[in-house]
């Protein structure tokens, strides 16, 4: 019995997760706009398409699409809350910020995922390359981390340095855990009320194998990103007709360990990602999730045109 399956079996829905709300935006058939195909709230489950659609540059999802970078909004649009309340689909916790993550396979946009964050301790950061080819934070959202936020303004990472620099160098997502004690996490110095314990670094919009920017999702032990967060490492093989199929080499679980055996729901997600390469937001009705879970969000991450990671969050 692999520990992936055991961690899934013991899945405990975490009402107090950092991510409280999720939207899935996919391109319209003529690729002229992004459509909100589904949304989900912790505690309220998944809703289908709500008819919203944006053009490039419009709204948060449209901005992420146009700028090809993760985009942070540090407020809650009042019309969104009104519509969520009207549909009885508001998340259990208050929302304090949103981040829209565009997913690319080379130049091809595969969709935008919007995460709505609670006001609990944690942070999101967008690291971009500056004029001397170092990573600097170009936008960030911090809760309970004043000195961390301060020092970050003055922090730079050359290629290969720190978690952002590693994501840049390797071109793949990285998960770092036990940051409170590890030497890898070097911006904290113990003055903040929150203690960041895990960090997830995602490459965004890779060009020639190197990400244009790096998104960091930082969370505390008692307020995890999601009920269950997994980072899959994948590798691809090309068949005789030249089409790529990815396999999962390992699954790294936040708060858990690394495994290689996949459960049924994980195999299902992999096969869907392999067939269309888009992000997924699936409720327990369309995916046989472990007992207690209500929905799952999957982000496929590509290096060049090969699937290198799937970030999977379960709620």
């Amino acid at each position, binding site marked *: 019995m692999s520990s992936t399956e055991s961690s899934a079996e013991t899945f405990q829905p975490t009402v107090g997760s950092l991510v409280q709300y999720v939207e899935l935006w996919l391109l319209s058939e003529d690729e002229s706009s992004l459509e909100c195909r589904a949304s989900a709230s912790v505690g309220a489950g998944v809703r289908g398409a709500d008819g919203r659609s944006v053009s490039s540059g419009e709204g948060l999802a449209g901005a992420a699409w146009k700028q090809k970078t993760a985009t942070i909004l540090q407020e809650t649009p009042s019309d969104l809350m009104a519509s969520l309340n009207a549909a009885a689909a508001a998340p259990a916790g208050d929302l304090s910020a949103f981040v829209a993550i565009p997913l690319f396979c080379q130049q091809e946009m595969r969709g935008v995922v919007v995460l709505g964050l609670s006001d609990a301790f944690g942070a999101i950061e967008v690291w971009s390359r500056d004029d001397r080819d170092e990573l600097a934070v170009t936008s960030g959202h911090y809760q309970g981390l004043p000195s961390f936020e301060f020092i970050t303004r003055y922090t730079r*990472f050359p290629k290969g340095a720190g978690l952002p620099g590693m994501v840049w160098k390797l071109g793949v997502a990285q998960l770092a855990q036990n940051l409170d004690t590890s030497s890898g996490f070097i911006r904290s110095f113990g003055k903040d009320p929150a203690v960041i314990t895990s960090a997830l670094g995602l490459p965004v919009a890779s060009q020639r194998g190197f990400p244009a920017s790096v998104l960091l999702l930082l969370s505390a032990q008692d307020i995890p990103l999601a009920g269950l967060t997994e980072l899959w490492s994948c590798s691809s093989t090309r068949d005789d007709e030249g089409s790529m199929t990815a396999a999962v080499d390992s699954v790294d679980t936040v708060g858990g360990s690394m495994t290689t055996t996949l459960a049924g729901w994980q195999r299902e997600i992999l096969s869907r990602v392999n067939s269309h390469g888009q992000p997924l937001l699936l409720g327990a009705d369309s995916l046989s999730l472990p007992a207690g879970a209500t929905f799952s969000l999957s982000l496929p991450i590509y290096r060049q045109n090969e699937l290198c990671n799937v970030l999977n969050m379960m709620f």
Partner: protein
Amino acid sequence: MSDNRYVEIANLTKAYPNPFGQDVAVVKDFNLILRKGEVVSVIGHSGCGKSTVLTMLAGLNPISSGSLVVDGREVAGPGPDRAVVFQAPCLLPWMTTFENVMLGVKQVYPHGTPAERRQICEYYLSIVGLADSMRKYPREMSGGMQQRVGIARAIALRPRMLLLDEPFGRLDSLTRMDLQDVILEILDREKITTVVITHDVDEAIYMADRVCMMTNGPEASVGQVLEIPFERPRIRADVLDHPNYYDFRACLLSFLEKQEHNKSSHVEAFEERQRQERELQTSASDRQLETEPASV
């Protein structure tokens, strides 16, 4: 050549063979870019490879791989365009202060008249506060004064880069502060791109525009770079009074503490990898032995 990328250190690696003949990268994939006129201090635990990086920049220590470019030119060996000051100044004992400085000046200004060269020596010796000690021999001077000569000798070369390896490491703290100000004054005037290695986090902050924190070796590299936003010219009292001074200080100390805390696990993991590598090699050569017919 862009002033934004005046010095480019890319994937710089230095490896030495261990007793088993395996290459051990002391420094691996070290990346850093300096703007023209910038002062960068480098901190890191003893033995992590700070001097190794500096001597490679100086051209005194060949690199194993990667590249080192200063002002558009690949570093190929030592040269007067990169002046080095070590912990001990290595003055020639049979020469006066003035003559010690003149030695380098003659090389760099071969076409200058004797009067011009003399002026240059006198100018830089007076800048470091030795106007009255030019005729003294090293044995007649304190360690701090000797180090001043070393600094004057380096600056008189009008280098593109100044490389300082714990230049004040052996001096008492008052002399140390004096000399920090001497160097800062020179740098404010001459805008020389400078790398200064130090074990002192206060010195690292006070002297530099940015602090480069090195991870522990083996395979040491840049862990993080911290921008120091204090204005120049720096006034010590103002820097120490700055409301964020202690945040920068705490950040550097915390980095060093975390490196120290994880030192043994880092070394153990590295040695384990090397042991596995050796085993793989041994089993591969065993297999080769089995298949090869024994030669008589």
